């Protein structure tokens, strides 16, 4: 276990380093001058002296490698510099906005698992009846409909037609928790449907694979009740692929949350990134991409580690 842990840790650190470097290179090698953007873009027609001055103020006149090492050093200290546009600290802006994104992603994953897993178990258990094709078709629909279509459909139904829930906006849960819940419900539900469908499908196929094995027949023939067989034996063995899918869903959730934040005017980290990209705000883009990619890589790392912990065969690979 020790050797495996060390190997995985090193490869995770290397991957993080690569991501951070690629982000830096992409930003600096792709066309578009942030100094111009700060001065109002090419249309504002700023004088070359102004541009040079801004470049100097932002440190963009230094050689690329100096900027690179400066950037690496700051990242280690979790300091992503200040926004080119409004001079605010990027780290503290991310610190306020990331939790808001997490406030819709994390509940959405929980909802997806809590609904998707039982549905998958039911579908596998009643494979011969109408229940399975019904649940499976709903699942297929669930990951075929784009998340922004689901979002708009929910807005139309629950905000415009029924008037039950507000269509957009965000309220700090510390100020008014019930109002926050009202506003977060639709984003969370729209985000959870896709992963719910995937969890359901994965649970179903994983359970079906296990149900065909000999130990299930043994368990049944020694007189165990159907519930005990399903939950104590089958589900335990079927859990590994299910956990993988749920963990991998995290990336898809981030993708979905970009669209959900845009529909519901949710001031999370994605909205922050989209605005920053529009105005070439390098430090903000670097900061957000580095943080999001790191979270993503760390989750994959934790998933792998927990596998090795639960399934000794992986350690010896």
């Amino acid at each position, binding site marked *: 276990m020790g050797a495996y842990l060390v190997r995985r840790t090193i490869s995770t650190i290397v991957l993080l380093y690569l991501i951070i470097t690629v982000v830096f290179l992409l930003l600096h090698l792709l066309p578009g001058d942030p100094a111009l953007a700060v001065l109002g873009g090419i249309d504002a027609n700023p004088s070359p002296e102004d541009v040079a001055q801004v470049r100097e103020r932002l440190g963009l006149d230094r050689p690329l490698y100096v900027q690179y090492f400066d950037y690496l050093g700051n990242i280690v200290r979790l300091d992503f510099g200040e926004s080119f546009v409004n001079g605010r600290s990027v780290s503290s802006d991310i610190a306020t906005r990331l939790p808001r994104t997490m406030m819709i992603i994390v509940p959405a994953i929980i909802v997806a698992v809590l609904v998707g897993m039982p549905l998958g178990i039911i579908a596998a258990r009643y494979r011969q009846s109408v229940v399975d094709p019904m649940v499976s078709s709903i699942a297929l629909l669930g990951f075929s409909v*784009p998340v*922004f279509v689901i979002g*708009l459909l929910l807005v139309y139904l629950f905000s415009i037609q029924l008037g039950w829930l507000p269509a957009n906006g965000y309220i700090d849960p510390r100020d008014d928790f019930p109002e926050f819940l009202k506003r977060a419900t639709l984003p969370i539900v729209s985000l959870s449907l896709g992963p719910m469908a995937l969890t359901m499908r994965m649970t179903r196929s994983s359970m079906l694979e296990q149900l065909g094995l000999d130990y299930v027949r043994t368990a049944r023939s020694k007189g165990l009740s159907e519930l005990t067989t399903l939950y104590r034996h089958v589900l335990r063995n079927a859990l590994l692929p299910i956990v993988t899918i749920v963990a991998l869903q995290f990336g898809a959730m*981030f993708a979905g949350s970009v669209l959900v934040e845009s529909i519901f005017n949710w001031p999370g980290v994605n909205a922050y990134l989209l605005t920053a990209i529009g105005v070439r705000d390098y430090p903000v883009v670097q900061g957000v*991409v580095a943080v999001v990619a790191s979270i993503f890589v760390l989750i994959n790392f934790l998933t792998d580690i927990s596998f090795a912990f639960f399934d000794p065969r992986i350690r010896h690979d």
Partner: protein
Amino acid sequence: MEQLRTVGASTTDLREDRHPRFEIIRDWLHWFFTNPRVFISGGFIILLCLAAIAAPIITSSDPSLIRADQRLLPPGDGGFLGTDEFGRDLFARIIYGARLTMIVSLSSVMIAAVLGLVMGMAAAYFKSPTDTVLMRFADAILSFPPILLAIFVISFWGSSVINVIMVIGLLYTPRFQRVAYSTTLAVQENDYVLAARAIGSKSTRILRLGILPNILAPSIVQFSLAMGTAILLESGLSFLGLGPPPDIPSWGRSIQQASRFLSQHPWGVFWPSLVISMTVLAFNILGDALRDRLDPRLRS
């Protein structure tokens, strides 16, 4: 043993040895017409492709024609499906939008499939260091949430059709690469590959004739499923305004623009949403059906 000859023999012998071609086609046609889910989903995709190609024949209206006196009309008035906020014909915009969707998703998935198959096979066949470099590349791409990378790259390259195709192609390469990699690892352990090596066949020949035919089946399944997600990604980017330029009709952008008029004119959101969902659903159903047919593990 038949495969041993496939690798060693000349290509002319090979054709005689194979299952006669017309029989394979007949089997596939039989499969297509006797499976309702395949017939409906495949038929829908074929219809959509035909509509995209024959767009000017199907509808005489210009999808970009702005008619200020016919804004936000319900279906029936001012066109089969109604009009959008500029008075443009929604039916024409959806039919022309199919062109963009099909071109973008088909070309990007093609790029991904070719790159992924070559890189996956090469990584498995040539082992380290090719293996390490190529598979780390796949890991690096997979470690970014896909839409984040797409937004990031497109906002710097600019949002043209070509750029969207290239980004989606690049993002989907690792999927095919992984499928090709794991199947190649398994297939190349077969004796016939060893035999081909022993008689001095070139690596390219072994890969092309001995390994490629064996990894095609899982790749075809992957292709159909990737088409579905590529359409989702393209429409998502268009929805965020990062897709192709606004003068090209696109489903995702239509939804985004119509969403501002959701309360008074839901049709503008409804029709393109329905078409996107049905198209993705069709590719997913087709992918599932192909998997059932092609995956030997399920064929017992």
